[in-house]
């Protein structure tokens, strides 16, 4: 390798490293802000036998997520010497890379199961609310930073194209957050129905009856509760407002995306939707006029 090539390669390496560090920094910041939501103490709900629950506290969850993302970024970042020394093949290397990731994802799943009341009961409304707050906080934090960057005034010959591109990205992000909120809302009846079945099992256990004896009856109970919870949700103002907001943001995103694609397509010999819609409108009006004239001719002919 020549000196010039070596210099170029190390420059690229430095740039890449800086980029990765920058990304890690941004994610760290977003996670810190999100973890602030979890500082609000969530009262521990009693378990089936009335004992206080010892689930993970919000700080532990935050720490777990933080470590997860650190593991993720360490894989993308500069590997340390000896990291892959014992790896003899590509699968081995992949395994070594993915091991920390896997370990932390298992840890997170366990924390999640404990938090949702896998071994204890927690109020599903509080749980769902916590998840909603977490997601909203994450998207708000991310959106706030992104919006500032995307709304920086553009300059030069390409300014309008850049603005439309940035707008499409911004609207995509807004739509993503609204859609996530909507989907989370749809998950709430699942949690509630599940909680209802767990309560029923706990009640049977208390009465000394075999809880899982008739699992078909439990399934019927679960599906009935699920149906009832969905019926209540689908008529609620919360659902209507979330659905309306999601559809509005979808509309804004599609409009912004269409404008961006128009910029791309005008350089290609491909008609855009706008071009075709104008043509279809003209065709429609012409056809209507012809039909009307045909009817008049037919009437006059008779």
């Amino acid at each position, binding site marked *: 390798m020549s000196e010039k090539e070596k210099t170029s390669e190390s420059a690229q390496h430095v740039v890449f490293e800086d980029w990765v560090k920058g990304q890690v920094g941004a994610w760290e910041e977003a996670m810190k802000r999100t973890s602030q939501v979890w500082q609000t103490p969530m009262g521990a709900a009693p378990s089936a036998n009335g004992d206080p629950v010892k689930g993970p506290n919000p700080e532990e969850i935050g720490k777990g997520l933080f470590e997860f993302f650190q593991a993720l970024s360490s894989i993308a970042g500069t590997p340390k010497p000896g990291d892959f020394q014992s790896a003899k093949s590509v699968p081995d290397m992949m395994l070594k890379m993915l091991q920390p990731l896997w370990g932390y994802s298992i840890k997170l799943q366990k924390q999640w199961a404990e938090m949702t009341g896998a071994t204890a009961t927690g109020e599903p409304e509080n749980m769902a609310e916590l998840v909603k707050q977490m997601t909203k906080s994450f998207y708000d934090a991310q959106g706030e930073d992104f919006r500032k960057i995307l709304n920086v005034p553009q300059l030069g010959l390409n300014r309008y194209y850049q603005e439309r591109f940035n707008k499409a990205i911004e609207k995509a992000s807004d739509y993503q957050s609204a859609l996530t909120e909507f989907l989370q809302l749809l998950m709430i009846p699942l949690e509630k129905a599940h909680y209802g079945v767990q309560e029923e099992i706990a009640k049977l256990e208390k009465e000394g009856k075999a809880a899982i004896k008739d699992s078909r009856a439990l399934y019927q109970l679960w599906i009935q509760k699920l149906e009832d919870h969905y019926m209540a949700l689908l008529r609620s103002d919360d659902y209507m407002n979330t659905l309306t907001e999601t*559809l509005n943001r979808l509309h804004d995103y599609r409009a912004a995306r269409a404008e961006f694609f128009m910029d791309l397509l005008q350089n290609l010999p491909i008609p855009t939707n706008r071009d075709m*819609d104008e043509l279809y409108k003209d065709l429609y009006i012409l056809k209507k006029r012809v039909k009307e004239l045909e009817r008049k001719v037919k009437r006059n002919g008779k």
Partner: protein
Amino acid sequence: MMAPYITAGELIMARVAGDTAKFHDQLRKAKEVLLSPLETDIATTPYDVVWEEDRVKLKHYRPTREPSLKTPLFIIYAQVNRETMLDLQPGRSVVETFLAAGLDIYMLDWWYPTRKDRYLNLDDHVNGYIDSAVDFILEKHGIDQLNIMAICQGGTMSVMYAALHPEKIKNLVLTVTPTNFDHDAGLLNVWARSLDPDKLVESYGNIPGDIMNLGFLLLNPARLMIDKYVGLLENIHSKDFVENFVRMERWIFDSPDLPGETFREFIQWMFRENRLIKNELVLGGKKVDLKNITMPVLNIYGKYDHLVPPAACDQTISKIGSTDKEDLCLDTGHIGIYVSSKTQRQFGPKIIRWLTERDEAPEPVKEETKKTASKKKKAAETAVKE
């Protein structure tokens, strides 16, 4: 002691698997069923396409016997989903039942709208396509009137058509037809009032069938997205069950797009303003007055219909001008009315009997008489203008 934790997946498996020995036997049979040829074709009753205008087609079903009724029956389905549901499978086909009774059947096929159809509105469908198809049938048979049977949104459009062109309709059969939209009995009504149809139409042009499918699934996610498939797993060893299930799936997810302007007008004028039942609807410059509906009307709806509940249908009879009119509420849901074997024994025969009792088709009007009548009408119109 901690209560045992059971997941949703385990509940489903318990329901499906049940007895272990029996489950193994079912699994073996299921494999044989799924790997064997399955008869899942729908709409197999033979027909000919006798008329077309743009994307819309008119199907004429080939008679299986000598006609028993003089007046042909024109069936108008909704634009949501496809009319193939009326001919889902042999033995559960409304079309078959009617053909066996000697009815001469025409059916409107709205086909699949493309982007070029986005500007078509209610007037285009009612006074355009439906009227043109009616004229074709009348001219072909040399008659002045025909029978119409309409389904769901097709029924709503047929009510508009009957109010604007009552002279062309001999008898009108409405099935699961909403005319009153001002109620909260159905979720669709609750949702539609909060939706902004303009934004959806601006976003998509035509409303995609997939979005409508998703909307219908969300009406009851527990039953339509979970319990239904658990039921399939439980019965997957049964060839008949699997074939019927797949046919229904093929129909239910075969959703054409809805022309944008039609969707916009339907949501705004029907769901939000309820113009039809209030006699405030104007189409093609003419008022749709329900009192103009004077032909015999049979109005059939389902007691357990969650899409078009009884509250949407039970005001029709009281608002129309007919003297020969009847409400019939069946113990079934929206689709069950056509596919449930129990309802098939009530529904089809009732309609056949009702139409037969009123089938006194007038003598075909001769060509000379038509021209004379038309000239007289034109002269009268000119006199009024002067």
